[in-house]
């Protein structure tokens, strides 16, 4: 084992292998910075070049790419409040709050150092465990994975902000949104409203953009200032962030461990890892008051976990040839293109290849973190750009990212609908993380529950492993409850207040109708296809009915926002810019759409001379064209393109 480790190390530094590793790292950093794009996009771009490449170079390049995405995706999460990839959604909560306080440098520095440690931790675990990991993976079957899903859901308790009722209902919405599309047990299509687009269900990238990016943009557009509102110099805080990570070393180690474990277990998926780490750190912290408002621990935890995940994720990929996440599925395809067959034989005969991956992972993390540090003082200046200039860029990038989900114009329509809903959630203090957790765990819970019952009957609940995880859940919930304080209700709400027509009661009505509709939809399906969404929506419907009409205390908590009508109007005025772009795009296509958007926003929000507006617009369009050219990605086209043959890039 040791000689393969050493010979793999020398192999990476011989010939052009290292150059390919560097290329992969640079590419990965770039893709990570782009919001909403992660390993799947990166691998898909490299896939055509892999066939016929020398395996060591190709492995170094692919691993280099995947290793640094969770490092560099922090930029978008911290600086703009847009999840850089689906594995860094949780970073947005505290990272962006810190950036708004002018502490972007500190947050980034803490994030990169935590990422570095997490990545190296994952690589170490991969080295040691890959030879003996088979029993671990075989230990976690459907019943254990189901319980781990429940453990994840139990995090909702601490992530539900000031009101548990809201968190509970928001999680229910997430769970039900996750059941859209084909049912795992019967293949029936649920909640599709007859639209073929919804047959494939919603994707986590769309939900992430809608839940975090859109409400933030609206908020910032409304205030029309720079992101960082305090006049602290950006350059300061690097050392502080580093010290934060060192001080919270136990959090880093624990979360790196969580990240690796989630990675190793195929079937939980990569996008839940940041939430589990975040939930864990909130649960185990004595002072929770600052989470979500700029607690550095809320940045360190998800960042150490999501880098560690990649090392863990390689374990099942190499050992069993089954991918732990979407990007690993593509990586697996890449391996076979290289003539490397994953499976036990790869460990027994070609251990060297595995260790090439280990070293690439470790080196990439070091190089990647170094590069991110190096460029970040420049990139952090984004937070000092006036929002009137930054906003059109952000709206453009978000729509472009959302469109890449299935490359259909409906991606944008869904983004708008969910974005509007989540903007309301933000306004009325509904916890969006709870919705996200429900969504990412929905399929896991339903599939494994059904499989566990099918395989072991309900006796699966008496398995030792299941009971063990259940005890862990109880402990973690207990730890979380110990110090959690519910916000005291300042004003009391009566049932009759529900019938005063304002946007908040309409919002509650929408949720209520959604639950009711899902109950109805579930009855149209076979028992196995309908029982999961049916049960969830029924519980939610009953709890909500009770809250609205029978328990005044709960109602006061659910309907307690101090959001005035004036604020709401402003919010929707800001939101209309996004609608504006989507309408333009569906009429004239993407490029013409963004040109008009840039002009309109800057004319409206800034007092810049026309020539400057023109320059910035040209820059924005050029950025998009370069992106789509090098990444072979399409733009949405509109009605105009259907009727007229237009030259590139308007087609």
């Amino acid at each position, binding site marked *: 084992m040791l000689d393969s480790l050493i010979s793999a190390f020398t192999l990476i530094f011989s010939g052009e292998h290292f150059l390919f590793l560097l290329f992969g790292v640079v590419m990965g950093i770039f893709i990570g910075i782009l919001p909403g794009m992660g390993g799947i996009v990166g691998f898909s771009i490299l896939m055509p070049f892999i066939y016929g490449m020398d395996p060591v170079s190709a492995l170094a390049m692919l691993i280099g790419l995947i290793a640094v995405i969770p490092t560099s995706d922090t930029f978008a999460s911290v600086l703009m409040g847009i999840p850089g990839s689906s594995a860094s959604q949780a970073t947005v909560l505290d990272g962006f709050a810190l950036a708004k306080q002018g502490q972007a440098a500190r947050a980034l520095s803490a994030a990169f150092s935590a990422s570095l440690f997490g990545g190296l931790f994952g690589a170490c675990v991969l080295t040691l465990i890959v030879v003996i990991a088979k029993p671990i993976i075989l230990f976690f079957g459907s019943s254990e994975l189901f319980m781990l899903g429940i453990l994840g859901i139990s995090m909702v308790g601490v992530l539900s902000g000031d009101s548990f009722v809201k968190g509970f209902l928001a999680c229910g919405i997430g769970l039900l949104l996750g059941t859209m599309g084909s049912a795992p*047990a019967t293949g029936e299509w649920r909640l599709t409203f007859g639209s073929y687009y919804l*047959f494939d269900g919603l994707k986590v990238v769309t939900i992430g953009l809608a839940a975090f990016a859109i409400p933030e943009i609206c908020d910032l557009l409304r205030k029309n200032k720079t992101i960082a509102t305090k006049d602290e110099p950006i350059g300061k805080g690097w050392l502080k962030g580093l010290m934060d990570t060192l001080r919270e070393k136990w959090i880093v180690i624990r979360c790196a461990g969580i990240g690796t474990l989630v990675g190793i277990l195929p079937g939980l998926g990569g996008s839940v890892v940041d939430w589990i780490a975040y939930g864990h750190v909130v649960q185990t912290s004595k002072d929770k008051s600052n989470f979500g408002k700029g607690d550095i621990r809320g940045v360190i935890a998800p960042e150490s976990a999501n880098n560690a995940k990649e090392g863990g994720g390689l374990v099942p990929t190499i050992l069993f040839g089954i991918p732990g996440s979407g990007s690993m599925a593509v990586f697996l395809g890449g391996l076979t293109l290289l003539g490397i067959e994953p499976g036990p034989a790869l460990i027994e005969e070609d251990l060297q290849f595995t260790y090439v991956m280990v070293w690439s992972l470790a080196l990439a993390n070091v190089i990647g973190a170094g590069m991110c540090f190096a460029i970040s003082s420049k990139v952090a200046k984004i937070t000092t750009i006036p929002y009137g200039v930054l906003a059109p860029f952000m709206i453009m990038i978000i729509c472009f990212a959302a469109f890449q989900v299935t490359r259909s114009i409906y991606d944008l329509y869904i983004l708008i609908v969910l974005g509007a809903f989540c903007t309301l959630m933000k306004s009325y203090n509904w916890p969006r993380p709870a919705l996200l957790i429900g969504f990412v765990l929905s399929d896991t819970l339903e599939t494994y529950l059904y499989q566990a019952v099918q395989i072991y009957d309900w006796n699966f609940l008496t398995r030792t492993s299941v009971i063990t995880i259940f005890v862990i859940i109880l402990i973690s919930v207990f730890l979380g409850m110990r110090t959690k304080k519910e916000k005291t209700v300042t004003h009391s709400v009566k049932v009759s207040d529900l019938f005063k027509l304002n946007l908040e009661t309409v919002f509650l009505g929408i949720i209520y109708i959604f639950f009711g509709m899902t109950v109805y939809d579930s009855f149209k399906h*076979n028992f196995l296809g309908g029982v999961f969404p049916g049960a969830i929506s029924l519980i939610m419907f009953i709890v909500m009915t009770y809250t609205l009409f029978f328990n005044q205390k709960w109602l006061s908590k659910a309907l307690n926002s101090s959001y005035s009508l004036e604020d709401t109007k402003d919010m929707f005025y800001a939101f209309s810019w996004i609608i504006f772009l989507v309408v333009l795009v569906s009429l004239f296509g993407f490029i013409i759409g963004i040109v008009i958007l840039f002009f309109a926003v800057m004319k409206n929000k800034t007092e810049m001379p026309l020539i400057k507006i023109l320059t910035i617009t040209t820059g924005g369009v050029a950025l998009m064209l370069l992106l789509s050219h090098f990444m072979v990605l399409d733009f949405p086209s509109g009605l105009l393109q259907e009727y007229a043959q237009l030259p590139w890039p308007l087609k």
Partner: protein
Amino acid sequence: MFKKFLAIVAALMMSMTSSFAVDFSGKTVTWLIPFGAGGGSDKWARYYAPMLSKALPGNPTVVVQNCPGGSGTKCSNQFAQIKGGDGLTIFGDSGSSKFPFLLDDKRVQYNPTKWPVVLSSATGGGAYVTSKTGYKTSADFKKLQGKKLKYGSQGATSLDLIALLAFDMLGLQVDAVMGYKGRGPARVAFERGEMTIDYQTSSAYFKVIQTLVKDGKAVPLFAWGILDESGNIVRDPTFPNLPSFVEYYESVHGKKPKGPAWSTWKTFFASGFNGQKMVYLPEGTSADIVKTYADAFAKVVASDEFKKTSSKRLGKYPQATGKAAVAAQKAAFTIDAESKAWIKNHLTKNYGVKF
């Protein structure tokens, strides 16, 4: 004399234009794959793409483009919109996007029988049970018959339809546990002991299952087999030591399979394994472009590079071109009304599938 000269020139020009009619130099051929990057169809196309580029006149760049969604129906619908193509867009499908057509899935707005086919790749697989059943050879079949067996499945209308129907015809009591995201996770569930019967495609079978068989954890039942030229199912040369499904059926039931279940099974087998992956040109593509592609694929399959690498990449399976590919296409999409009604009823009754 002059007239004769003109005639010769004209004839020469004619022959020149026809032999140079199809030339792709400097062009890019887009090969659409209706599934995600890294999947089986993607790997298959990426294996062929560089060789196809060499074999086509003018050596165009061949790029594989993934357009996943709706179990392959989304991209198939898009491809069906192209009428009379210029030969610069080709389409590769798979068994799992053929089944929705055969089963009248409401998302299907395409008719693959209208697409000129230029390549048809077969594949195969082997079925096995856990050794805990006590089963050792086909003589022990009785030991399996009374048992409740569990099979991890991707869905009743996926490629698993073939396996589940085969087990059913043999008279085995197999519980299909749905929701597995592929054959790989189902195999791991088998290794954990949660599943007791399974099948894997050839490459996975040789990679993993052979070791399980050697270690005494799994016992092989049969390999599906391949279709010979007259449409009979014969032993799969990749699994020379395993009986074909038909042989196995005969050895345990003492007679050849027949009836509606059997004719349905054969159609789906032809679609899901024998002609699992096919390459098409758009409807209405001119005959000379189709011929250019057919020739190019024939050239690829006959090349030394292909002969050297294909058995490792694709297994020893027929890669039909020309008339053989057309025959495979016909076999894959011909389903009589009776079989169709039978299978729909079967799926509804046993798996609650609604049509």
